[in-house]
């Protein structure tokens, strides 16, 4: 006899765990299945775990702001469940958004006003006061060091920044997923690891369960794809699901760098999260007084779509495998070096290479599918970490409503936020949508 659950969640990362948590709270008997050894060990571990509110749409801002409230009171969210590994810590550094041609900051400011996000406007003097090593010349457009113009003397100055005191990062993203797993287990959720799903079974046009690589079959009328970079492969396993999506997902290789802070600058304790579209970078402090340097994927940078299994196995060669490249190391560090001219850049790249699960328009797909009982929370593309607890709740409500007969494709669910006095149209994240050209088509969301 196959084991049977109400819902099987494929993936135990920072999105898969909260879905299990919320479904369990609603009384569903859930099982998370993950091919890795523990919760959050996949692309969640490679996340920069930044918590910031600036998005190009009001809904995006609202959702991120809602997520922030969860991180702020992490213990409460976990219902005071303890984790033998300790709790992830949310570090509220405050978040600087440089006013630049790289970001539509006026739109962000309007969205902040609409949602009610607190912020301050800083002029350049104020930025220097708060970030003493900064050089506030304008370096736009973002270039690569291979381009001789990259080294041209800048002439213009920036026009200040928008500072949001509510923002920061989570110090250990893998641990945060583990915390949520423990909280979910306290509500009855189950997890199995080192278990790779090879098939999503259906019977009579309805979801029936999954099959593992070792042949084990587990039954459930609900299966949720939270496979991260493997999401497109999971969708292809379920009958008609991949074909039924107008928006597809793919795995995008992405490098994040760690560069030591300049001598005499305690970035770890005195620094801010900063999104700097002028140089196409975002930064936050990291252990060892280093700058974590993320890339906002400027057009001049190469995009490498890869097979996730080959990538994690170290195959594919330079620029395609799971090793940092010197070219990208220099690109990201020198760009930050323009802004922080005292930053010393080592020769050996140091950082994280991982995969984004990226949708065609960089907006996630939180939706049901054409196969009844099969759902997906995919295409989370490097900017949904902060939203994970919100997505968990929203997906659970979506699943519950659909199972109770809602035709979400016709009458999309309106999800009411828990903290922010707003709702959001879950139909915005539909698999059936046309590509949303209002998207930033980048990690900025």
């Amino acid at each position, binding site marked *: 006899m196959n084991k049977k659950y109400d819902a099987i969640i494929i993936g135990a990362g920072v999105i898969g765990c909260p879905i299990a948590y919320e479904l369990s709270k609603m009384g569903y008997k859930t099982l998370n299945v993950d091919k*890795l*050894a*523990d919760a959050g060990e996949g692309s969640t571990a490679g996340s920069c775990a930044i918590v910031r509110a600036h998005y190009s749409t009001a809904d995006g801002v609202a959702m991120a702001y809602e997520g922030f409230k969860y991180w702020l009171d992490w213990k409460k969210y976990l219902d005071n469940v303890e984790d033998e590994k300790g709790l992830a810590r949310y570090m509220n550094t405050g978040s600087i958004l440089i006013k630049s041609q790289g970001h539509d900051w006026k739109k962000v400011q309007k969205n902040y006003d609409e949602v009610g996000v607190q912020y301050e406007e800083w002029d350049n003097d104020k930025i220097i006061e708060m970030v003493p090593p900064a050089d506030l010349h304008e370096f736009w457009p973002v270039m690569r060091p291979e381009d001789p113009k990259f080294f041209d003397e800048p002439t213009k100055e920036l026009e200040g920044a928008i500072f949001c005191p509510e923002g920061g990062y989570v110090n250990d993203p893998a641990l945060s997923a583990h915390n949520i797993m423990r909280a979910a287990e306290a509500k009855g959720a189950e997890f199995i*690891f080192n278990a790779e799903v090879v098939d999503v079974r259906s019977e009579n046009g309805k979801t029936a369960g999954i099959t593992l690589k070792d042949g084990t079959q587990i039954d459930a009328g609900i299966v949720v794809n939270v496979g991260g970079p493997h999401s497109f492969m999971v969708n292809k396993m379920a009958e008609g699901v991949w074909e039924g999506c107008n928006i597809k997902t793919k795995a995008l290789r992405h490098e994040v760098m760690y560069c030591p802070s300049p001598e005499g600058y305690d970035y770890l304790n005195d620094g801010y999260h900063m999104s700097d579209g002028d140089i196409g970078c975002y930064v936050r402090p990291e*252990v*060892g007084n280093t700058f974590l340097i993320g890339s906002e994927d400027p057009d001049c940078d190469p995009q490498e779509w890869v097979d996730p299994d080959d990538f994690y196995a170290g195959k594919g060669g330079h620029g395609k495998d799971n090793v940092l490249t010197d070219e990208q190391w220099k690109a990201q560090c020198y760009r930050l070096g323009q802004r922080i001219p005292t930053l010393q850049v080592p020769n050996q790249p140091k950082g*994280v290479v991982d995969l984004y699960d990226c949708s065609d328009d960089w907006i996630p797909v939180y939706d049901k599918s054409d196969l009844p009982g099969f759902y997906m929370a995919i295409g989370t593309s490097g900017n949904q970490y902060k939203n994970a607890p919100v997505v968990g709740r929203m997906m659970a409500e979506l699943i519950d409503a659909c199972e109770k007969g809602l035709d979400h494709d016709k009458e999309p669910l309106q999800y009411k936020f828990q903290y922010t006095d707003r709702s959001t149209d879950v139909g915005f994240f539909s698999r059936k949508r046309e590509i949303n050209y209002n998207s930033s088509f980048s990690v900025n969301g």
Partner: protein
Amino acid sequence: MMKNIGIIIELDKGRIKETNFGMITLARAKDTELFAVVVDADAEIVKEELESFGITKIVEVSLAEDQQKNPVVRAKAIINVIKEYNICAVFGLSTAMGKDLLPRIAALLKASLVMDCYAVDIKQNLVKTSQYSGKTSATIKAAGDVLIFGVRPNAIEPVKASSLAEILKFDGTSLISKDLKVIKTGDTDTSENISLVEADVIIAGGRGMKNGENFTILSKCAKKLNGAVGASRVAVDAGWVPYSMQVGQTGEKVSPLVYIACGISGSVQHFAGMKTSGMVIAINKDENAAIMSNCDYYVKADALEIIPELIKHLGND
């Protein structure tokens, strides 16, 4: 034709270090005569031991008293021995001393040299050593009139072979070095720590160490093992140990011969920094920890209970 093989014997306080015997075993082949070269030691004292491993000639080299520790003078003396006895292959240990001696000999003779080798085929002049931070094994064809091999300590199992040895004296007391003088030779006692990236043994702690003080246990153990202490990101993040000790994707990348992971779960990021280690021994209470299925040996136990015992047992040596 008989080939004459020279073996540079490394002594410690007048006694032969154990690891020489593996090297002699490696050098032994058909139709060869083994010349053991001992510098500034009484050949009579070491004769019997060398005979039990097949040495047939012992060259006792004497140097001027103030030149004995000079690597240049030692190199010159050995070169003279090589020439005098028509030696065509020289074996020495790839120890700290060997690293300062063998390349000097090779450079002055314009002879080929492979350091840190763990297999030598003296008939075909093929040598094996590791390259690319322990990621590949290279087979090297050595050519020339004299071939020099720096043998990785303890790489070869010693096998006895009895023989009778003749003692030959070589007077090197007139040899001097004008341009390099020894001011001071290293004291055996030092408090300086071995660098993480260069250590042969690393004992690393993670979440299971519980606090910073417990890392002193690892330091004690590392000292006994002549190794270094590493840490996972969690231990650094918690402020238990400095960032310079972090092993992993965002810390140091290490390739020791042995990596002992104490209370480390073994995340992908941690593996990125130590996966090229020779042997991995994991000690963890959690049998489901990722590292337990990606190591050579695992112990299901609290490292804080095992390591103090390990220190005790290492102390008995």
